[in-house]
């Protein structure tokens, strides 16, 4: 099973080296009270790395590249988060990162056998329903979180992986068409569209406009792949019609959007530096202040700005570590999403899942980074793995687990199919 021992040893080593180099950078450039702080942080990160390397040995996967990328990113994330403002080990983020790793493995175990999932499709729909209900009942426009003890959960986040699953599981049933009146209808398409519409409505109701594009992108990717699936018989004309209708809807939506949305869309951050444009303008100033190589871990001023560790985290990292490093970080996440390009999945189910996960990650990153840098309206979404937030990290972990499942799938027959035809009695010989 461990096909490339040398590569894996090297991967482990270089992950450790990358983290150590970052720690060295803190040691020389950072702002800290005493070296002990760095020692604790370093020990925690390295121990987590090594522990994870040991743990993944227990999972008999075909591919481990994503595991190494994940631990690399999470280690970076812990180091980043511990250095904002001043070097000090961020225990909470450390724990959420461990949760993320666990969620990743959970997602992997769950999704590796797609036939099983496809049979349990109704449960997925049920789970989405429950999550939507929870979102509706327990959260409001003012507060998107549910507080349980000292932990807060954002239920709308959990809909994302479920929705990805729903998109992926509906693929296989594409051929089952039903005739309703004169239309050939695929129930799955309607169900999925319904789910999407319900989720969007719930998001609009809870004023969570940041997640909307993420869901829309997942749906678009799922939809595109579904209609590309052989026998879907979706003519180009229909496709363009659907796109046109969508564009019209978006335009109408923007035109008649509520005032506070309109306001968000047209805010000029530099003329409103202390008001609505505060976060963005400070973020841009922070990036400018950091330059290519940053001012040094812990030496930035952005840590005094609201949401420095999630909404504008890209700018905070750029300021302290330099734009170059922030770009590297983004590159690492892109490569995670791009692993299915190097190593193609072996089933359309996993392919769709990878594409949906990739869309979700990239759109979220784009919204966060471009939003905080004033290219597009600012929305409060998180960068996967880097931003703080338990729900976000856990969900990102789950989604990476799905990617991993696509890399190391199992193709098991299902119970019902086992009992079918015995060896034919007569075989035609050539």
């Amino acid at each position, binding site marked *: 099973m461990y096909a490339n021992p040398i*590569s894996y040893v*090297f991967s482990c080593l270089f992950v450790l080296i990358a983290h150590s180099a970052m720690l060295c950078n803190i040691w020389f450039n950072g702002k800290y009270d005493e070296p002990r702080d760095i020692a604790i942080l370093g020990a925690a990160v390295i121990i987590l790395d090594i522990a994870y390397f040991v743990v993944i040995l227990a999972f008999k996967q075909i591919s481990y590249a994503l595991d190494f990328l994940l631990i690399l990113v999470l280690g970076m994330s812990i180091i980043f988060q511990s250095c904002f403002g001043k070097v000090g080990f961020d225990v909470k983020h450390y724990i959420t990162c461990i949760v993320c790793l666990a969620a990743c493995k959970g997602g992997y175990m769950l999704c590796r056998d797609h036939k099983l999932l496809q049979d349990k499709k109704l449960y997925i729909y049920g789970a989405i329903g429950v999550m939507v209900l929870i979102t509706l009942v327990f959260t409001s426009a003012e507060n998107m979180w549910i507080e349980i003890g000292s932990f807060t959960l954002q239920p709308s986040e959990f809909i994302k992986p479920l929705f990805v699953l729903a998109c992926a599981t509906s693929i296989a049933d594409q051929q089952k068409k039903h005739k309703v009146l004169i239309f050939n209808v695929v129930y799955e398409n309607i169900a999925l569209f319904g789910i999407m519409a319900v989720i969007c409505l719930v998001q609009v109701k809870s004023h969570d406009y940041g997640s909307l594009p993420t869901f829309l992108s997942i749906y678009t990717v799922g939809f595109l792949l579904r209609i590309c699936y*052989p026998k879907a018989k979706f003519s180009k004309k229909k496709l363009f019609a659907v796109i046109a209708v969508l564009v019209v809807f978006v335009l109408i939506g923007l035109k008649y959007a509520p005032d506070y949305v309109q306001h968000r869309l047209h805010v000029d951050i530099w003329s409103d530096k202390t008001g609505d444009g505060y976060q963005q303008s400070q973020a841009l100033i922070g990036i400018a202040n950091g330059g290519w190589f940053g001012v040094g871990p812990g030496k930035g001023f952005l840590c005094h700005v609201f949401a420095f560790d999630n909404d504008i985290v890209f700018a905070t990292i750029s300021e302290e*570590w330099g734009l170059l490093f922030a770009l*590297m970080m983004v590159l*690492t996440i892109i490569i995670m999403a791009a692993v299915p390009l*190097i190593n193609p999945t072996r089933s359309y189910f996993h392919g769709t899942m990878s594409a949906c996960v990739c869309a979700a990650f990239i759109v979220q990153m784009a919204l966060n980074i471009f939003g905080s840098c004033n290219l597009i309206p600012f929305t409060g979404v998180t960068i996967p793995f880097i931003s703080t937030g338990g729900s976000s990290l856990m969900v990102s972990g789950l989604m990476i687990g799905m990617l991993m499942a696509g*890399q190391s799938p199992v193709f098991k027959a299902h119970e019902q199919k086992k009992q079918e035809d015995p060896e034919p009695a007569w075989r035609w010989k050539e």
Partner: protein
Amino acid sequence: MESLDLIFCAVAAAALDICIFVLIITAYREKRSTKKNWRQISSDMELAEQDKSYELGCDEVLIGRHASADIRLPDLSVSRYHAMLTVANGVWTIKDIGSKSGIFINGELTREAVLHENDIIKLGNRRLLFRKRRDSRVR
């Protein structure tokens, strides 16, 4: 001081760079091992015509005349979407997905059948041999 700052930032970035590079290489190395693994899972089978062979590269292989089919048989006797090959537990199964002319396995008309090595699959006028994969380089 200024230059030291710069050097360590650059070193950290470079280390990260190299690490990413190594991981990409790892992914590429895995490409080979996953291929091997896939062959194990799929019993290393392929479909062959007289002078052509078709790889079975994923768990659902669609055979048909349509351009989007995985194995395209440009023959009017073959339906646009004719048959689907699926694999589970290393066993390949063929399934009719609404073809006009049906599937004949070793001369027998079926809707769904488990495939064995050296089975002859007849789709319309085309005959395909289900056999162990042969390395093209060996041949």
